[in-house]
């Protein structure tokens, strides 16, 4: 009650975080390497492409020192493919997040391998520079924020007229928002308490978090009595103990 902000990040915060995502630029001026908190930026030599954080790339773009190369997934063809997949092929689920980056093995030429070691974290928010290296046909975690920022500030660098990309994005947003709304309806079944939200982007989560949590919480409250009774039965009957009772501690 004391906190005025709902749980989770607001849109502005998510958009701020998205500015750490890497984008590819084509510099128009030389710029020496800079020491930033996240490490050194690559030295910029005009015809060579370089990867920079989005905020720095936008700054250089505004100063006309660089052009931004739109990421492959922001190409109209990629967007229409995703829309097609979301509406026609899989009208129920969200399109999957980008696969982990592939690495070529120098000893085994021709066979790239997905990075999937035990110690690499590859879930969306922690994936390194997932926005720049995401292949076409997949939406990275920060897709909408990055796309909006690029459209607003680097519309002339797009692969197609900015209006076309924008209208495709709008379609995609609408399709996915509708899915988000109807995704809660699976909770209505007696035994099904799972919602599949794989592939949902950060800004979509920020938008729907309160609503989805509200629905889940309501379902939990309605079922609380039956749940307590079931637990009692279990404890008296088989003596199977839920040792942690994690459901109670979650505090959704």
């Amino acid at each position, binding site marked *: 009650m004391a906190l005025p902000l709902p749980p989770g990040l607001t849109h502005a915060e998510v958009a701020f975080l998205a500015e750490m995502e890497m984008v590819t630029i084509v510099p128009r001026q030389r710029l020496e390497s800079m020491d930033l908190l996240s490490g050194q930026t690559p030295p910029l030599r005009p015809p060579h492409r370089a990867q920079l954080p989005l905020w720095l790339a936008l700054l250089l773009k505004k100063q006309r020192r660089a052009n931004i190369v739109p990421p492959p997934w922001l190409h109209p063809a990629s967007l229409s493919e995703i829309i097609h997949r979301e509406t026609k092929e899989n009208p129920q689920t969200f399109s999957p997040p980008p696969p982990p980056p592939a690495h070529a093995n120098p000893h085994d030429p021709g066979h790239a391998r997905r990075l999937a070691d035990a110690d690499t974290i590859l879930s969306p928010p922690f994936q390194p520079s997932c926005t720049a290296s995401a292949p076409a046909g997949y939406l990275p975690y920060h897709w909408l924020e990055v796309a909006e920022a690029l459209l607003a500030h680097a519309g002339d660098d797009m692969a197609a007229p900015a209006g076309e990309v924008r209208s495709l994005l709008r379609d995609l947003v609408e399709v996915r928002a509708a899915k988000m709304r109807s995704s*809660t309806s699976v*909770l209505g079944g007696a035994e099904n308490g799972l919602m599949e939200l794989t592939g949902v982007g950060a800004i979509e989560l920020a938008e729907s978090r309160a609503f989805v949590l509200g*629905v889940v919480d309501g379902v939990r409250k309605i079922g609380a009595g039956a749940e307590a009774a079931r637990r009692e039965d279990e404890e008296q009957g088989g003596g199977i103990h839920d040792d942690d009772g994690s459901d109670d501690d979650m505090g959704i």
Partner: protein
Amino acid sequence: MSYYDIDAILTDAEKIPCTFQLDVPDLGYLDNTPTQTLKTGSRIALPLWLAEMLAIASSSGDLDEQGKSFVTFDLPPALGNDVVQALKADPRAVPLRDQSAHFYGLATHMMDLSEEQELATVLRKTYVTRATEIALHARKVGGVGHHGKSTADEGSNLGVGGAGEEFLRGLDEWERKLFRKAHDGAKAGKEWMENVKKH
């Protein structure tokens, strides 16, 4: 549920029908018969908190009355059979607020007191089905842009009006909160999108 939760307090004030199981002297005014004894078997609507106390507590007077609770209670009309049947038929068509402004709160409280498996199933289905509808309306309703955007920008307002308003008026408190959450989310999203350019 917090101690200071106003909705919880108001839910506790909802009346439910109770049947007295023993005579109570001088309480007849509850049944419109002042200065008389309240007879066993009188049916009176009591607030939930009082009914709960009386139903759980048991008298410790005479030997033959020992262990007997003061009152027994039935499900309130808001959770009656006809309402449940209507909800089964089409959850969206029932204005829950007309039944009780704290419909779900009342229902969960009643389910705590008495085992109603079927009611829980119906309510769950109802809540989830209506939630989808609520989210849909929450996205449409209201001009989100503050600065008088052109009507073309709010083209998604189509379909609100008649039926939509009717439905929204029938939301109970839980659903109103849910509507608010969904609406705030959608609004924040739109505001953010309009502000991207300014940074």
